[in-house]
């Protein structure tokens, strides 16, 4: 397994990052870029020419990760050549969020199951119920196949997200990259670093991933009150206060982040289910814990094999909004764990997909750093 990375910057075009040793021969190229940049397909065309045999897969982001650096409005590309692993892709189009589960099933059903080892899932970030998508995909896959991935981003704009597999980037697409081969070792980990605070509230009115009322009061009003002058920046500023959802006392807490706001009916759309009757608490970032979370996710991902060849980091846009100039600190924390040899790429997302614990079903996370590591033995 060999990896080489390139970076596209406006006005500069493509530059190699690190050593160049694939000579154009790659099985898979992962490319993550700004929405506006990806709209112009010419930048991707250069990659197609550079790696003619590779599947070219990627999405728009809220920040591109290459090594320990975060950039906006660029393209971070990572070409991978496997020695023993085959890569296949499948994709579906989704029109409405309530089709998410069916779309997940359809997508997974298009994948060859024989010898399937791992699935990397990259989805539209605006029109998908990530929880349902993860559920649908998992339903159609053998239990031993893990799924990791994330929802595409659009900076802090929350307007349109793009996904592609070979074709030009488009909205409403979901792509699965399937890895086949006994010698591929995949590790994964996902950690947050957000703390619930303030009173516990009950979700009194909701519909799937749309939240209307907490404790009988409009949920949007609550957010506006807490955000104060930042309320005008909704929905992006809503990322500062994700919700911790608990189905019942002593149950595991899930983190949910805002995707969009509807002023007309005072509702908030979240990236995952908001079951009625669940307990909800506002969460806030804790600087040190965000960085510790990234560190922990990396440690989990490298449990099976240290110093992996490749690490795909999918981190929530909310972390970037909080960490601001210090965003790279969480990437450095990951680097500290993985070591200097691992090629790191990825993006800031609108949702992360990963099993909560090894061997569990994959599910949607929000506000986490989710890391997938790959090595061939």
């Amino acid at each position, binding site marked *: 397994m060999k990896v080489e990375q390139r970076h596209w910057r406006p006005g500069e075009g493509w530059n190699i990052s690190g050593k160049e040793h694939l000579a154009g021969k790659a099985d898979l190229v992962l490319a993550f870029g700004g929405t506006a940049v990806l709209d112009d397909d010419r930048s991707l065309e250069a990659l197609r020419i550079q790696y003619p045999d590779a599947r070219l897969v990627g999405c728009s982001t809220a920040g591109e990760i290459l090594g320990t650096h975060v950039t906006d409005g660029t393209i971070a590309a990572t070409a991978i050549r496997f020695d023993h692993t085959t890569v296949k892709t499948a994709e579906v189009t989704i029109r409405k969020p309530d089709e998410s589960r069916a779309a997940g099933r359809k997508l997974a059903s298009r994948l060859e199951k024989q010898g399937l080892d791992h699935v990397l899932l990259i989805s539209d970030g605006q029109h998908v119920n990530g929880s349902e998508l993860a559920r649908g995909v998992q339903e159609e896959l053998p239990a031993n196949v893990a799924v990791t991935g994330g929802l595409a981003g659009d900076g802090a704009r929350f307007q349109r997200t793009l996904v592609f597999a070979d074709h030009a980037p488009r909205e409403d697409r979901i792509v699965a990259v399937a890895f086949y081969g006994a010698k591929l070792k995949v590790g994964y980990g996902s950690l947050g670093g957000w*703390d619930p605070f303030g009173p*516990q509230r009950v979700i009194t009115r909701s519909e799937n991933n749309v939240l209307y009322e907490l404790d009988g009061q409009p949920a949007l009003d609550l957010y506006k009150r807490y955000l104060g002058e930042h309320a005008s920046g909704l929905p992006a500023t809503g990322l500062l206060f994700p919700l911790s959802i608990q189905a019942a006392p002593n149950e595991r807490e899930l983190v949910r982040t805002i995707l969009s706001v509807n002023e007309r009916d005072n509702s908030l759309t979240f990236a995952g289910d908001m079951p009625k009757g669940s307990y909800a*608490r506002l969460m806030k970032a804790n600087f040190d814990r965000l960085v510790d979370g990234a560190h922990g996710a990396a440690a989990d991902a490298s449990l099976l094999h240290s110093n992996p060849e490749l690490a795909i980091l999918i981190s929530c846009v909310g972390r970037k909004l909080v960490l601001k*100039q210090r965003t790279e*600190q969480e990437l450095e924390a990951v680097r500290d764990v993985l070591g200097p040899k691992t090629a790191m790429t990825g993006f800031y997302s609108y949702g992360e997909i990963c099993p909560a614990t090894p061997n569990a079903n994959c599910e949607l996370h929000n506000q986490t750093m989710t890391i997938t590591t790959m090595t061939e033995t």
Partner: protein
Amino acid sequence: MHKLLERQLRSHFGDLASVPAELAPLVDAVSRAYEEADGDRALLERSLELSSQELLQRFQALRKQQNEQQVIFNSAPALIFYKDTENRILRLNELGARAMGRPIAELEGKSCYDVMPHDVAKRLHDDDLEVVRSGQPKLGIVESHPDASGVDHWVRTDKVPYRDETGKVVGVVVFSQDITEQKKAEEDLKAAYRKLEELVKFRTQFLNTTAHELRTPLTPIILQSHLLRDALSHLSDPQQRKGFEILDRNIRRLDSLVRDVLDAARLQSGRLPLRVAELDMARVVGDAVETVAPQAEQQHITLESRSERPLLVAGDPVRLGQVLTNLLANALKFTPEGGKITVTAVASSGHAIVSVQDTGIGVPPGQIARLFQPFSQVHDPMQTTAPGTGLGLYVSRGIVEQHGGNIWCYSAGPNAGSTFSFRLPLLKPGAPIVVAEKPEEPVMAPATPTTAPIRP
């Protein structure tokens, strides 16, 4: 150096070595400022975290408590209402809502004037205001209310002042229980009791009248029989003599039966008339033994008697003689030929205790308790005697108890003989002659006097 500053300097100057030396003091100050800001933020985060934890714990404890209260509130077997002084329902439980025929949500916050007939609401409000004004609970209000469908229900209501956290009365808490069923059961019971009382009264009256009516012709018959006995004393024909003896015995027997019935009837309706005087029980025993001696001899039964003298009691000699005669007649009746009857009269712990012990057929353990009830008969396996009224022991008990005494029986079982005893309070020398209205508690007798053996 603060990590963020380091990154910023690298990004600006390429590497740290390229930072101009004259900026060193500034870099140092900025780095310190970053670190101080971090420290301040960490402190704030810690405060927020701790207060949030505390808030959550309180919230969870409160929710648990609320849940427990809700469970009690809704499973209590009573209609519970919290009301304010304006007759508004602040809170009510499920039972309360069900009784009013509407869901809780439709009743909470509503005035009683809006959800029930005005006169009923007014009555409830007046009660409430009384409790609010006095600050005292009003308990056990029993009244009838129509339910949602108009059916009247009896309810028992307790109203207690509803005080806020400062102790001020801000309304009432009402607990109501539907007692319609209970009320109906009470009425049924009362009616049954009235009917029973009438029956008892009728029976007593019937017995009384019958006994009197029977005695009226019996008195001249007895008199004529005595006269006849004297007149016919010279009769030599054994057939005729035997015939007369049968007639005479049966007249006396009939007389005794009628007396028993009359006594029993008097006992049932109250008391027997007593003529109380100072008397020696030893003498009463002596007289009774003397009376039955010929019959004992005739039945070849040994009759023994031991008495301490004197045993002074306040009593009616005729009635106490009747008790003894009764006990002796029973003993004779149930003791076979060759048996023995022992009569003792002793003083013990301030009482005269008189016992009639026989070697007869005894009493089965299960029957002892019923012996002193009216119309009870000990089964006579020998079938040698005619059955009595079953009133003798009942009347005896009545007489003894009216003298302030007790009567009881002990038998070790069938064919083990039996002992009937009674005790009367001894008269203290010089004390006035008064008979206790009620039997006093036995002093030395065992807990169940009717089965107690004699302890002479």
